[in-house]
């Protein structure tokens, strides 16, 4: 299970440094994590203030715990989660990818699936916390290994929609503004930093 930091908060931040155009991987033991245009850029937290640094760290940790490697790419020409995750699945050596939007909505995709399908979808971004991201990473890695993980239980909160819909819509509009049409996905490298600010 995930382990929230106990000590009062040396908050971690992340910057994504661009390495160059994202290429198709050949290692069968890799999972590609694809982030949206505004992830860890214009925005730094999800809709419920989970830092993007924590989202990435937990996804990476879940994958590493399973002994699988990870690459991160940024998709820049769309803010549509299915498109982001599907694009990344095409780049992934194992065919498995995790797509994540700035507000936190996440999906596990596989390259042979139709774009609008998915292996696991976590549609209610306000209900995703560090633990869930850890398990998503872990499941994606297990799919890459050809194992049969139990799907991460998707929480459901009837009130999430009315409560968060307006904010989600605003975040989405902002994310759409960050789209750079016609630009191909880039491979990025995360640089985590501890800021004592809190």
């Amino acid at each position: 299970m995930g382990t929230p930091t106990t000590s009062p908060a040396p908050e971690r931040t992340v910057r994504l440094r661009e390495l160059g155009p994202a290429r198709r991987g050949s290692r069968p033991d890799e999972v590609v994590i694809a982030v949206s245009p505004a992830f860890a850029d214009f925005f730094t937290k999800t809709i419920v203030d989970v830092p993007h640094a924590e989202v990435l760290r937990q996804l990476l940790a879940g994958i590493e715990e399973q002994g699988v490697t990870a690459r991160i790419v940024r998709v820049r020409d769309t803010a549509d989660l299915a498109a982001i995750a599907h694009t990344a699945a095409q780049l992934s050596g194992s065919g498995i990818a995790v797509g994540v939007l700035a507000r936190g909505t996440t999906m596990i995709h596989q390259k042979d699936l139709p774009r609008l399908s998915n292996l696991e979808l976590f549609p209610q971004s306000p209900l995703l916390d560090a633990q869930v991201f850890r398990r998503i990473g872990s499941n994606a890695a297990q799919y890459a290994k050809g194992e049969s993980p139990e799907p991460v239980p998707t929480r459901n909160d009837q009130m999430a929609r009315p409560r968060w819909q307006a904010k989600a819509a605003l975040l989405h509009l902002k994310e759409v503004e960050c789209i750079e049409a016609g630009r191909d996905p880039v491979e990025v490298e995360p640089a985590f930093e501890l800021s004592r600010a809190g």
Partner: protein
Amino acid sequence: MPDRARLVVGVDIGNSTTEACLAAVAPDRTVSYLGTDLTRTTGVKGTPDNTDGVLTAVRGALRRAGRAAAELDAVLLNEATPVISGLAMETITETIITESTMIGHNPATPGGQGLGVGTTVSLTELDEIDPGPPVVCVVPHGWDFEDIASTVNAAVGRGVDVVAAVLAGDDAVLVANRLTRPVPVVDEVAAVEKVPLGMLAAVEVAAAGYTIRTLSNTYGLATVFGLDPDQTRHVSPVARALTGNRSAVVVRTPSGDVTDRRIPVGTLELRGSGKTLRVDLATGAEEIMDAVARAQPLEDAHGEPGTHVGGMLAQVRDTMADVVGQDGEEAGSPVEIAINDVLAVDTFVPAEVRGGLAGEMHLENAVALAAMVSTSRSRMRSVAERVAEELGVATLIGGVEGKMAVRGALTTPGVDRPVAVLDLGGGSTDAAELDREGRDTAVHVAGAGELVTKLIDSELALDDREVAENIKRSPLAKVESFFHVRHEDGTVQFFDEPLPSHVFARVVTLAPEGPTPIPTRHGLDHVRQIRREAKRRVFVVNAVRALRQVAAGGNLRTLDFVVLLGGSALDFEIPEMIADALAGYGIVCGTGNVLGTEGPRNAVASGLVAAHAAAAP
């Protein structure tokens, strides 16, 4: 003698299906079969509720043959031996851990490898202790993997000899990857706060693909903890419980213990052949079946009142009383209900270990019992009356099911007397034999398809009868990509259209409707082995048991032909398992093909017609 062909329909009411066979019997007694039909049995077999099913089947057969109900001369019903079977499963062992050890805890991804032996210390105290004897670091909930690694690294830097770590979360690989000095790490210990501190502990992690060597060896444990012979005897269950794990933690505490307790579940009292035998259920299936064999023919069985066995057998009796009694016309004398057969099967049930630290599961031994009840009475007469009323046709109750089945089986091409049939049903396995002289015998033994389903359900901890039923019925495959599956025999099949996403990477059953995922973490081989073992322990054991009872002198070599009938004879592997088991006795065994067209179905219905024709005035 009538001068025209008489139109008759034989109807067999089974536990799950009702089958009809329509035929014309010519004045010279030759039979021409016109059509068959099959429908679900309505209500419990042998009760008036069956009428609807009978009518559906009869009308279906008439429609297929293009005849009208008015043309019928007689409806023949089987004398449904009111056989019902009850199932129960009782756990007979219980593993209890006091304090110290983690058994059966086998996290999917432990970290590091090797063996570390030291005193348990909480991570929160690690920066306060001085360099000295080796320590095993115990990490409570709520720590981030990077913080754990840096704290341990700092302590190691100061000279503290950290030799292993035990974690609450699923972080073992993450922590191990970040340690400056690699040590074995076991994770996912949910009740980590119960790990006693300041005690000697051993942590072992094997390399991927291997299992632990030291802690699963009694003498290994003795070496690690410096035990004397008496104490060594004491820890032997611990070592046994750890066999096959990739990682393990054993903490040595003064009173720590693992016990393997036998749960008193009661004794079974078997009455038959002039004696009464008592057998303790906890002794397992072999002893029970031995006692059953010695008490043949079994007259009745009772469970010790107030125990699990007692409750189970009482329940079977109650259900049966419901079937045969409480019908005004037939009430009067108290109904005599006797249990005529018992099948015991050893099985295991995954159960949570009491006192465990990580929610460990351990396979506990259990015994599954199938009991079969038959009575002297059936309520077939009231079914017959109702059918006669509805159709306006004379309705006769024909011969005993098993004996009719043999006559039906004789219509299978290539079969001759002496012939024995095995009717592999849902609740009971029935055998009947017809020898050269036309003498016939029939027996019913407890345990069939339902028991197989139950064994699969509990041994895989599915808790879903539907899924267990699917596993029983269809071969398995692993979905390796959206476009191909690997079947259980290792062959690969490709698909043009992608498979649905919910089956991706799963072990599936290949039912005709399409692949259905099995919700289990077990691999395909494990599921397959459990499925085959369950079938073998029920059907192969029962086939031999039932045939012994009908064969002359109990000698299977006197049988020439064995014909398999019933729903389970349609199974994809049971017929060959039975054929393999019987091959050694020089028996020709195969799935029946009644009338040359019906497969293993419709034997009783066809047999009823044949018997009726032979006995016709």
